[in-house]
């Protein structure tokens, strides 16, 4: 096995090159894709190498996803790019009432091999309408799969699986992570949807995360190690289907857990994890499960306010410490 260091963007583009070469029915549809190889340069090389299969659209999100749904129903494997994940709001019917339900409503007659690629996340001073992390909305919709990778290697392995999957997949990539580098295996590989990864072994507390939350946990685990707290990191990678087995076996070992995500707190995926964990492991837990998340406000523009709203490494450290030092008051 040979490894190279790639950015998340390069990993994405490499994966899509491989998939588009392998399968002629794969194509990419969205706004402003060809001029600069995607808004973030994330599709580098694809406009040159597949000029007929990466296609600029009018600013018509409902039509973009509609074309995705209709072509998925009729033999193609579309990837639609939503420019900023915030614009899912402009095509919610196509995503939620159509893509998610068509196979089921029609009694399983058809497949819906659609990938919806959504760059999300805050921290670039883009304010309230360009900074959201909305993955939990889609987890709540039966019929959609939800993938939120963190490291470049995960991006590559998961997008390939998403493209090959016969169901609609919401694929969220944090825009702050596009330039993050990481080792990516040269030989072809897939990462199955619904498989979490234990990315750091530890015995004191389990940090459950995905997407940008992973990097917060990585930093936090180093700091915690200096304080004699040995954190285990479970990177979920896919929220739906969810790999609860990996979460449970980790918490069985550590008996404490903290959930970490960039989306805001209330109704976030952390809440779902807390519910599942207490159902399975109530007797075993040594402390309440803590959630680290963004503040429950739209993202403000001014830097210090935005930084204040976003979850930070220190929040993860604090939550882990409080879990470890928790003593029952009754």
């Amino acid at each position: 096995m040979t490894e190279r260091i790639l950015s998340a963007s390069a990993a994405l583009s490499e994966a899509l090159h491989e998939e588009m070469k392998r399968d002629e029915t794969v194509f990419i549809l969205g706004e402003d894709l060809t001029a600069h190889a995607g808004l973030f340069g994330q599709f580098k090389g694809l406009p040159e190498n597949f000029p007929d299969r990466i296609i600029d659209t009018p600013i018509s999100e409902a039509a973009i996803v509609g074309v995705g749904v209709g072509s998925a129903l009729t033999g193609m494997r579309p990837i639609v790019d939503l420019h900023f994940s915030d614009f899912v709001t402009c095509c919610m019917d196509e995503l939620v009432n159509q893509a998610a339900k068509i196979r089921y409503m029609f009694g399983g007659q058809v497949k819906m091999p659609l990938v919806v690629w959504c760059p999300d996340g805050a921290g670039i001073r883009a304010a309230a309408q360009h900074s959201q992390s909305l993955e939990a909305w889609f987890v709540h919709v039966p019929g959609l799969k939800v993938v939120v990778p963190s490291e470049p290697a995960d991006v590559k392995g998961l997008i390939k699986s998403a493209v090959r999957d016969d169901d609609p997949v919401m694929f969220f990539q944090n825009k702050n992570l596009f330039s993050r580098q990481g080792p990516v295996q040269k030989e072809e590989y897939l990462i199955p949807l619904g498989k979490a990864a234990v990315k750091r072994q530890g015995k004191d507390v389990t940090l459950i995360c995905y997407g940008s939350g992973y990097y917060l946990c990585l930093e936090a685990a180093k700091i915690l190690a200096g304080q004699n707290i040995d954190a285990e990191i479970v990177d979920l990678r896919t929220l739906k289907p969810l790999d609860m087995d990996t979460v449970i076996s980790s918490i069985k070992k550590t008996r404490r857990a903290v959930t970490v995500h960039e989306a805001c707190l209330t109704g976030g995926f952390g809440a779902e994890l807390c519910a599942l964990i207490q159902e399975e492991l109530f007797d075993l837990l040594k402390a309440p499960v803590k959630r680290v998340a963004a503040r429950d406000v739209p993202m403000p523009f001014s830097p210090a306010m935005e930084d204040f709203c976003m979850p930070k490494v220190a929040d993860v450290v604090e939550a882990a410490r409080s879990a470890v030092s928790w003593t029952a008051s009754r």
Partner: protein
Amino acid sequence: MAEDAGMLLELYNRMVTVRTFETVAGEYFAAGEIPGFIHLSIGQEASSVGVCSCLQADDYVITTHRGHGHMIAKGADLKRMTAELFGRKTGYCKGKGGSMHIADFSIGILGANGVVAGGLPIIAGAGFSIKMRKTDQVAVCFFGDGAANRGTVHEVMNLASVWKLPIIFALENNQWASTTPLEVSCAVEDISCRAAGYNMPGVVVDGNDLIAVRKATLEAVERARSGKGPTLIENKTYRIRGHFEGDPQKYRAQAEITPWQEKNDPIKRMYDYLVTDGILDEKMNLKIWDDAAAALEEAISYAKDSPFPEPEEALEDLFVNP
């Protein structure tokens, strides 16, 4: 109809102010002093100033991500705008909005919008409320050629026309939507021809000619105020700058931009018009530009001297009754 010389001079002045604001904002953005993204309206001043010059103080305007010009044209305060771009507590939105989300409800500006065409459904509500409240106000929504392809535009234009709402759809067709040229995304050259499908007037206007913009807008405003319903005005113009500041612009050549800068600059055209008519001379012109520069300098100092919001202020303003 002959236009009043003093007023034309004032509108020229306002175009110069918009241009100066945009130029200075671009410089401070390049210097890293303005966070986030800014989208400049350089070259589109005849549209913003021309349309807003036909409005009363209590008329409504909704603008876009490229909204600085519309704000200034409707009478926004340069200091509070600048402070908002700089993310300061004294800005229009206390630093919560930034360039893409400025508003001044006290002068009828119902907000800039970061969602393309996001303002259009809302303008229908403003128009409907005018009708319900039986005032003589009108409501203007600026939007781009790119925005014209959102499906909500269809819903709103039909509804506004069938309900005869007092709305002016002010389309600024600047030929580009981000990296996408009009011909790639739009089946017609004149988007205003779509108005026929809604049984409302649709007019093509030389959007870099202030007087032509005013003429079309005055008619549309008159129609709206007299209860006859909406008009779609298509101001043909050109986006001189990149989509956002810092846009690498690999999709177009300078040769395409140059004629718009040299021959078709709305400010130069108005200058020529005013000089030919003996309304403006070079000395007055220099003073207009100097005064605009001084006003901007003052606004920048105001912004820079203003405090940033405290981080915790991020939690304020979400609900009236939390």
